[in-house]
């Protein structure tokens, strides 16, 4: 097995990032938006770990990645609670239905 180097990791992470942004921008479903966020965060994690591995930077990157994973889980938990509550009132998770407030 030959070592592939840093660049392929960065490319995969960038693809994840773009997928996540597109997902957030196009999905009308609150859970779908959340999945987009997770994709971006995972792209960032991949970056952090690849930099940590190939940049002689020690364990700092991996430590940040761990905090990012845990915070993503905490956000997902809050998200489930909020979306569930939204569903109870609106009977949908379509965020376009949230348009009562405007000028």
């Amino acid at each position: 097995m030959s070592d592939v180097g840093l660049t392929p990791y960065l490319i995969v992470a960038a693809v994840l990032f773009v997928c996540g942004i597109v997902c957030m921008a196009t999905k009308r479903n609150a859970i779908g938006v959340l999945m987009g966020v997770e994709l971006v965060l995972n792209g960032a994690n991949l970056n952090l770990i690849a930099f940590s591995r190939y940049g002689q930077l020690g364990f700092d990157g991996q430590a940040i990645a761990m905090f990012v994973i845990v915070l993503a889980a905490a956000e997902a938990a809050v998200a489930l609670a909020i979306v569930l509550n939204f569903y109870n009132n609106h009977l949908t998770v379509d965020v376009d239905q949230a348009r009562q407030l405007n000028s």
Partner: protein
Amino acid sequence: MSHESIRTAVQLILPECILIGTVCVMFLTGPFLLGRNGQASPGLRHRWGALALLAIGAAAWQWWHTTPVAAIDGPFLSDGLSFTIRGIVLALGAVLVLAAWNQLDDRTSAECNACLLALLAGVNLTAAANDIITLFLGLELVSIPTYLLLYLPTRSRPAQEATIKYFLLSLFSSAMLVYGLALLYGATGTTMLPEIVELLKATSLTESPLLLIAAPLIAAGLGFRITAVPFHFYAPDVFQGVPAFMAALLSFIPKVVGFTALWRLTALTSRAAAESADAVSTYMASVLAVLAVLTMFIGNLMALRQSNLHRLLAYSSVAHGGYMLVGLLAGGGSSGVPGGAALLFYLAAYGFMTIGAFCILLAARRSGDSIRTIDELAGLGSSQPLAALVLSVFLFSLAGLPPTAGFLGKFNLFLAAWSSGVSGTRWLAVILAMNAAISAWYYLRLIGVMYLQSPQPSTADAPTRNLPAWIATAVCVAGTLGLFLVPQAVWDAALLATQ
């Protein structure tokens, strides 16, 4: 790493440890004080509010006994910036607890007060961060309790809509910020903020394409928090939907964290300007300058045509974000009034006047949970003269007229931008003055409505007096006038941060 370094690191964040410890106590004992089927005895919220104030008092006592020291090698630092930000945040955090006091349900008040304290600890941690990890953790420790505070107090449809809007956009911005920070880490090869700042000044854009991508992502992530213009559109909707104390919180707390993080990441306010014209920090400064101009104009022009007070104050908060960005940008200068000090002074003044404005709307309500439309203000001058006078003080301050803190704050920002010697900031100073004039129109119009129009006949009974909200208002009036009459102490603290 040794015992010694761990002990110093913990000592640097003792005020935050007190706050977080109280949060744990609240979450632990909160559910045990509820009766069967989750009902609370009436008046339980007074106990939780008092405990929260006590914790803030203890943290403030601890804060007062710290002495700012120069940068050290570790995850936290306690320099002039974190000292000043901590003071501002603890003082206004106590005001927010008072404002929230009677808007909270007895049943959920333990959780809400705990979230408020956690959020204050998060702001302070961001200010004390010396490292990307602690900076990011501090920012998230502000965001997550904010979601909970949006979600817990009311379950009405508008509040839920505001919650889900704020939540999804905030997640989006956090994700961008994390990706930007990851690239920043890769490009600079360190997590320590002082080293990153040095590298950003020395590196030119052509050397590191990663930074070219990282800078806009970070600007977007933090721009959401300071409501800079392309990322401001959530503010009016969210402010309209949430209770008044949450609107007060959202207009102030995210701005403090956003500006603190920007300061730490760019250090535009340090006295030494960027060395070369194509350095990354110069590039970031020009991006931020464009954002500042757009933010001031769009915030003020949109505020002109609002009839809902929460929406009006939301656009006003957008515009004030723009003014403060001018201060941040002027900080790179080498002479005259330091822009960073002007920014910090303005943050304190802005906190007192915007939170005060929401508090008096809350305290002077005649029906519902607070005054929400301009029509409800009509004739306030004759029906509730004290409330009208107090609101006028805050509106004068927001418009930047003497004798209030807002005047001195705007004057400092203008001087800082005019005298900084950095190219382009003189234009920013001129635009700042123009916008202050535009904004005076809609603030003074409200005073006109209060004193010149006749009151609407009120059918609802006068609600019970909201004493904590009045105390909060009194503190804010004292702050708004006090920062004009005796500004020296706060100004000295702000100057300390720029050294």
